[in-house]
């Protein structure tokens, strides 16, 4: 008994001794804490410096008017918030952002899914199409903007030449409010498709083939198979993609800056672009901070709703 009891103790003690040589104390809890600090410390420090401090600072700034050097000078409490919600331009931006985000999310997911489903068919040259479908992942925003600007150019663009050839009146894609939003949505969806396609394609590959075989034996139609086997099986992926796309489209900036600069008549002046304009062009950091806080709350709210509503329909 004694030796048996002693042995494990001895073992622990020897291990302790061994590792104690490397660390600083003998207390096992102290050592845990030390490791915790060692491992978490750097990331906490970085997060505190680059995430938490700017976040708190943004909230602080949102209660102030800032002068032209960006320094907070006059405390105005919630006045910035009231000013925003009573401004027609801001409300329009809010609505435009919602329209944009919802349109982009829906089209990206729907088209991405169709392309991915099509790419699972084993036909000649399918590898070529798979490459093409995922190719937009490798296109940078500036290149995409130039590409689409050429297509939408009102006098020498591809679409206007096509319309003229067909004897239709060319659309002023980027200068008429409704069409500008359509053009931006088209370009963004096109940009997003590569990534969405790739994720969906991967998910479709992981659906066990036996399920489809069983369905075929039962003589079920293709569309029934899609809605009752494919969709439920890849629902976690759809959920993931929908959240990523939603957050990404809330944060859209590059295409808007390069293609419409928020115009015409603020039709594509989405929340992020407005923040950029107020902060870095107008030097109005107080107001821009207020807008940032509102945007953060909106994104958090949407993500929360998605988790509450969509996750119920997800089969893991």
């Amino acid at each position: 008994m004694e030796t048996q009891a002693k042995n494990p103790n001895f073992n622990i003690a020897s291990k302790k001794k061994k590792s104690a040589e490397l660390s600083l104390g003998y207390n096992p809890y102290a050592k845990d804490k030390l490791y915790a600090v060692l491992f978490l410390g750097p990331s906490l420090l970085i997060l505190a410096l680059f995430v938490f401090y700017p976040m708190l600072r943004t909230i602080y700034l949102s209660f102030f008017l800032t002068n032209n050097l960006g320094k907070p000078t006059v405390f105005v409490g919630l006045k910035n918030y009231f000013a925003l919600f009573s401004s027609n331009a801001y409300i329009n931006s809010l609505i435009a952002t919602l329209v944009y985000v919802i349109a982009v999310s829906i089209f990206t997911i729907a088209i991405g899914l169709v392309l991915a489903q099509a790419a699972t068919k084993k036909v000649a040259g399918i590898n070529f199409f798979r490459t093409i479908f995922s190719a937009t992942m490798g296109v940078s925003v500036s290149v995409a903007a130039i590409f689409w600007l050429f297509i939408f150019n009102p006098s020498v663009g591809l679409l206007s030449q096509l319309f003229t050839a067909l004897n239709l009146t060319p659309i002023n894609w980027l200068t008429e409010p409704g069409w500008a939003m359509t053009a931006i949505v088209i370009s963004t969806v096109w940009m997003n498709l590569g990534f969405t396609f790739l994720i969906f394609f991967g998910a479709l590959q992981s659906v066990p083939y036996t399920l489809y075989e069983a369905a075929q034996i039962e003589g079920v139609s293709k569309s029934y198979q899609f809605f009752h086997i494919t969709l439920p099986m890849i629902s976690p992926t759809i959920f993931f993609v929908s959240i990523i796309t939603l957050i990404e489209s809330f944060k859209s900036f590059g295409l808007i800056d390069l293609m419409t600069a928020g115009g015409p008549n603020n039709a594509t002046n989405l929340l992020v672009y407005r923040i950029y304009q107020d902060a870095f062009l107008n030097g109005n950091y107080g107001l821009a901070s207020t807008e940032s806080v509102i945007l953060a709350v909106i994104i958090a709210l949407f993500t929360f709703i998605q988790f509450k509503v969509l996750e119920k329909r997800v089969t893991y």
Partner: protein
Amino acid sequence: MKRKRTIFAALVIIFLAIIGFTFSQKSSAKADSRIKIVFWHEMTGPGQVQLNKFVKEFNDSQNKYVVVPQFEGNYNEAVQKILNTHGTSTSPALFQSMDISTSQIYNSGYTTPVQKFIDKEGYDTSKISAVARAFYSKNGTQLSMPFNTSQPVLYYNATLLKKYGITPPPVNPSYSDITRVATELYQKSGKKVKGLSVEIYGWLFEQFLANGGESLANNEDGHSGVPTSVNFSGTVATKTMKWLQENIKSGAFMNFGAGSSASANEMAAFLSGKLGMFLQSSADISQLTAGTKDKLGITYYPHADGQKSNGVSIGGASLWISNDKSSEVQQGAWNFIKFLMNAKNQATWQVATGYLALNKDSQDEPVLKKLYKSQPEAKVPGQQLRRTKPNNTNSGIFMQGLIQERTLTQTAMEQIYNGSNIKNSLVEAQKAMNSYITSNNLANKVNQK
């Protein structure tokens, strides 16, 4: 375990050594005992190429200073960068800042007025264009040195007008002169060629007011005191917007929208012969002559019917000396400014970029004479600049927040171009600007205490 750790430690040491080595290499390669003048600029295209040439020539010409040019993106963003880095080691000794940031940069108190060096050395400013100098001075003190300076002008495709047998617009056209040419062009080309484009650009809006002699901001456009309100909906503004709206509706004028894509689209349309005329900066001239074989025509900025043109103000940017650097560095920055302003370099600058030569002696330089001989129309912007007598409505607007003013007037123009009620759109923008001015003045006065 121990061996792995040793290998890892060895790798880390090697890695650090490589980094250290690279950096020491870099610093030793750059070791230049000359005083460094960091110069921030926002020039792109031919302007950047020529500016870098000037820098090289200046650096090779003497061994006391070395100018290090750094491109800082577009004008708007550069202003914030300049203000936010002041007092740090990364801040520039010399920087280029756009026309409408003048009041903002001045009020920051971050610069040494070039007047100090002008007085110290008895530098003769009378050779530099008076209109350009007036734009960047306050109560007779030269704040910064005008550098890349342009004038808004009207370009037309002379070959295209000739093809359809249309008489070109006169050199100082009124709105109805332009309407005539635009409508004829649109009709005679079977609606394939648009007559005129006025980009949705706040600068052009300001110029319509300047040319009509109408103040945009109170206190005489800020020249007699800090502006407290603006007037976007005056007679000239309303008349001009009505002219543009009617002709866009009829199809004779084209709306290319706002932003960098708008000017690119406009340029593409003009170069491909789908657009007959457009209003733009005189600095575009070199791009236009290089891009098409068609003969280019240039006139003064159009003015409203039944009134004389008051003259337009300049556009572009000026050079400022930061006061957070030693007096030796500031002196070096000033020496570089003088170098850029000499007659020969100003002439070279106009030939290379289309920005106007500001030194009066440049007109006698062979390079510029050669340009005028091959392109007589290149004289027009300079003539427009010289014929303008500076007054308070055509010497720029001395007001903070002009970027906001441009955003708001551009929004109003977008609404008007798409058919909205002119008065409502202008008044709405005016109200938004006035509330911006109120809170901006409030925020900045507290700071001045």
